[in-house]
Structures are given as C-alpha cells and as structure tokens.
C-alpha cells in the first residue's frame, strides 16, 4: 500500500511524531526544552539536517555500497550538522551558546540516522524530502509543547525571542523543579503516558 505524498508529510505530525511515537532523539528533548526559544531553535536545526540528509542519501542510495552505508550516512549527516553549526554561530550567536554541545550532537541524534536507514535509503527524493520535513516539523512541535509547559510552570514566563515575557505577574510562585534535570525526565514520562492515552485505538 503506497502512501500518497501528502500522507508521507502528515504522518510525521501525528501518527509517527518523534519523540513520542518514535522514541528517538531523547537527549536534546530532555536537555533543551527548558525555554521555548531553545526548543524551536533546536527543532529547526534538526528539521534542516533531517530534510537535506534525507534528500542527499536518497539521491545517492544506488551508489552507496550496503557494507559501508552507516559510515556514508554519518558523513552526510555530519556535513549538514557542520553547516547548521556555522550558520547558527554567524547569525544567532546567543542561541548557539545556549544550545551549546547539543548542536554537534545532532550527528548522533537517532532521528536523522534512523530515517536514513529506514526510509531515505529505500525511497525517492521527493518522498524522502517530505518525510524529513514532516518528521522535523513534528519534532519541533513536540519540543515546543514540552518546553512551553515546562517554562510556564517553572518560571511563570515564556521566551519567544531572546527576553522572557512574564505571564502571571509578581504574585506567581515559580516551581523551579520542572526546569531542572529531574523535572525534565518526569515531564517527558508524563507526556508519553498522555500520548498513549490519546492515541489508544
């Protein structure tokens, strides 16, 4: 059963939305969802890498020998990660500093690697591009939802661009726990449980 092109795109937004349905790429999900700005910045970076690595790997899928495919995929993904790294360093330096080590670590993020292996090496360029774009967008949405929840409850403010905007006024008692490490794990766990309830067939 071949999917239509629209379905290739939309499956990433709900049916296979990472990191909830495909439990991949957890490290950045936990680490950078402390503010909304970090979350969608990371999401956009991953989307870029995922889309372009999918396109290139799909274009090269008949040339890459199966035995060295993993190394070939890593080289392709690493190339685009370096592009993202340099672009962010040049144009969004503050965000680059905040995301820090998690930008180079997109190389070992399971999502681009997983999609290269499971999808781009078997499908055409248009389909792979839509697949990458859809999953990347889904990842961005998922990170943003998680980050909004964590940041609003934990600090009573939300960062859309650079400066946090206070939402509840001075009477709000911040719940710092949620932006610290333990809160990240518990939030993501609860979110996964919630998605399981919503998605029950």
């Amino acid at each position, binding site marked *: 059963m071949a999917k239509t092109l629209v379905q290739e795109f939309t499956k990433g937004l709900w049916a296979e939305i990472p990191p909830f349905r495909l439990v991949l790429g957890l490290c950045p999900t936990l*680490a950078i969802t402390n503010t909304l700005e970090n979350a969608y910045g990371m999401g956009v970076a991953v989307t870029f890498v995922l889309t372009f690595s999918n396109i290139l790997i799909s274009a090269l899928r008949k040339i890459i020998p199966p035995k060295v495919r993993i*190394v070939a995929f890593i080289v392709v993904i690493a190339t685009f990660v370096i592009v993202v790294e340099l672009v962010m360093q040049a144009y969004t330096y503050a965000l680059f500093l905040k995301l820090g080590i998690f930008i180079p*670590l997109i190389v*070992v993020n399971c999502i681009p690697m997983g999609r290269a292996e499971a999808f781009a090496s078997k499908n055409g360029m248009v389909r792979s591009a839509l697949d990458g774009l859809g999953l990347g967008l889904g990842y961005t949405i998922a990170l943003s939802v998680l980050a909004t929840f964590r940041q609003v409850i934990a600090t009573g403010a939300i960062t859309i661009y650079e400066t946090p905007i206070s939402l509840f006024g001075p009477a709000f008692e911040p719940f710092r726990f949620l932006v610290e490490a333990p*809160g*990240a794990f518990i939030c*993501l766990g609860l979110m996964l449980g919630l998605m*399981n309830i919503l998605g029950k067939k």
Partner: protein
Amino acid sequence: MFGDLAVLFFSCVLINNILLIQYLGNCPFLGTSKKMETATGMAMAVVFVLVLAGIITWLVELYVLVPFNLKYLRTMAFILVIAALVQFVEMFLKKSIPALYTGLGIYLPLITTNCAVLGVCLINIQEEYNFFQMLISSFAYSAGFGLALVLFAGVRERILLARTPRPFQDTAIGLVTAGMLSLTFFAFKGWV
C-alpha cells in the same frame, strides 16, 4: 594537583552525572536497562570505548585539527574516529580476547551512536583539559554512566513486577523513575 584531579573525578561521576544531570546517552539508557545483564554489558563497553575515544580524539584535536586550522571539521572528524575505533576494537577483541568479545557482544556497535561518547570527547576539548584531566574525565564520566545504568536497571526489574497503569507501561514509567533517580543525584550538587 592530586586533590584537583580527585575533585574532577567525583564531580564527573556524581555531580555532573552524564546520564541523569547532563542528559547525554539516554537512548541506550532506556534501551538496555530492562535487564541487569544487558545493562552491565553496555556499561562495560562504554567505559572501554570512551576512555580510548577520549585519548584518540584529544590527540587528533591537538596534532591534526589545530595545526592545520581545521577546527570547524571537529564534529565530523570525531564521529569518524569513534566509528572507526569501535569497528577496530570489535575486530581486535574478536581475534585476541574472544571471552570479552562475547561479553560485550552486540553493545559494541551500538556505541557509535551513543551521544555520551561524542559528548564527552567534545566536553574534553571545550573545557581545555590537559592530558591527565582528560583521562580522568573520560573515565569518570563513563563510570558515572555505568553507575546510573546499573542502578536504573535494578529499579526497572522491580517495576516489571509492579502494576502500572496501561498507558504508562514500559518507557513512560521508565522516564518517571529516571526522574526520581536523577533527583537523588541532584542532591550531590553543592558538595564540592
């Protein structure tokens, strides 16, 4: 000198635990912690590879990337070094130490995409550690990884026996448990 290194060691194992505080290497953390045997196998493999990878990437940075002004290729150079190293270690162990090879088994190839390995190598460079500090930090971070993984596997084996609500089974409850474990490591903050 010795005191500083000891402080570095304990802060890498406990205060900045790679899994629970720095959030690196979570995919194998959740994937291999369902049984104690797989957890110890993974922990040993990570210690072994991470110390070697730390040394080699540190030398690559010092003697290849910096002199030839290729720092912007660091990400690619490091991941390729790690991938090649893992492959090499696998072949070497298979030939000369088969007992260790069967012990580590399928966990060796998985390490290439373990972000804790690449992460620690990058941290070593960013913090501008010298050789001994790099050695201590590589070993201590991987020991911290093993400690957290084995503790978590012990807890998770018990959870299998408990009655969890259906939507929370497996990964969801695993993450909540990891949060509790992370809270205990959090208590070490302010110790040094």
